[in-house]
């Protein structure tokens, strides 16, 4: 009866920003990104990629509530960087990694098809 529409889970409502950044008021180089209509798929890869950056002192994400279709990514960095820089870099790195993976798959498919058919 009062269930939210299914599309609510992935369609960003009009007038809402997909990503918004809010600086922490007490700590320098800390803040949280609120990403609308995303879940663990994006949250977890972003968090893990941020962990690879030594300038990132803290990175975590949460899905505040299963019926609030957003995630909050909190980042705290050292002085050499800022949360926004680290965040952008993480996305760039993941994007390049996936571009690479796609190419790797295409190459491997060609190699696989050339490989003599053998019983595994």
């Amino acid at each position, binding site marked *: 009866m009062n269930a939210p529409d299914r599309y609510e889970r992935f369609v960003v409502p009009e007038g809402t920003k997909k990503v918004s950044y809010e*600086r922490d008021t007490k700590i320098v180089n800390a803040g949280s990104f609120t990403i609308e209509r995303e879940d663990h798929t994006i949250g977890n890869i972003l968090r893990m990629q941020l962990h690879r950056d030594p300038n990132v002192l803290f990175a975590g994400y949460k899905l505040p509530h299963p019926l609030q279709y957003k995630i909050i990514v909190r980042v705290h960095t050292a002085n050499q*960087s800022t949360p926004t820089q680290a965040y952008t870099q993480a996305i760039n790195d993941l994007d390049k990694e996936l571009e690479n993976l796609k190419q790797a*798959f295409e190459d491997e498919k060609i190699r696989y098809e050339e490989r003599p058919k053998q019983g595994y």
Partner: protein
Amino acid sequence: MDRPAAGVSYQRFPRVRIRELKDDYAKFELRDTDASLANALRRVMIAEVPTVAIDLVEIEVNSSVLNDEFIAHRLGLIPLTSAAAMAMRFSRDCDACDGDGSCEYCSVEFHLAARATDSDQTLEVTSNDLRSTDPKVCPVDQARAYQHALGGSEPFDTAAAADQRGILIVKLRRGQELRLRAIARKGIGKDHAKWSPAATVTFMYEPEIRINEELMETLTLDEKRSLVESSPTKVFNIDPNTQQVVVEDPEAYTYDDEVIKKADAMGKPGLIDINAKEDSFIFTVETTGAITAYELIMNAITVLRQKLDAVRLQDDDGDLGELGAHLVGG
């Protein structure tokens, strides 16, 4: 502590090895990446790679034993060939038809008309009775039969083409009739499972099994046998010639710890050491036939990249906002 300047790349370069690739099945190894990416790929394959499925049904005549919505639901679950889905539009953001979902860019129309003539045989209405208005989109088993009849390039396995009976929708008794119009639309599994192209997508960590040979030699043959038997899956075996315990199939291991417990119980801790390699994954992908397994993998990567692109900071927030705040806040 010395920290690098911002803007240094920490990109990884994953490696892939395909073990098996069929039309609707793939098994491959993914290395040099981490579980978060493997899981993201899995999640995207299941819930976010688009396909086409029947979404709107207008029933003209239905005198069958099943009610209208029951039939509409069954129609929705029929997998349709969706190779074109990536290029199609979602009807909710289609400009050509203002999202009412009835134009060539975002929908495909189907017709079905079946009537059991006056004979004692029940008539089985199947997916083969669905008539599509777009040859690119049709029920998957119809596509197989069609490709088979053409004798042309065959994207799907022909072995199954021998008995094309279609997917049963409803059975009609003498005099009963079913006539309807259906509209298929592009969608994703997150919206409704009928749009999911994945039958199963799983991945496991590659196990690394080490046997302490020195300790193993202190075991009698019977002890070795009971050790091998203790694993619920056939991971180990005894070499008939050397009577040594060998790893027969590491991937059969289900991380159940039974052999390790057994070794401990035998008073030989450390006899067998099993590690999950945290950067190596073995994927199994099976599709419904809507798209091929290879397409599913490639589309998943594309969709994930699109998602990442969508969560980039826009120019009006982010760095400028940070700088502005600094300037104001001093």
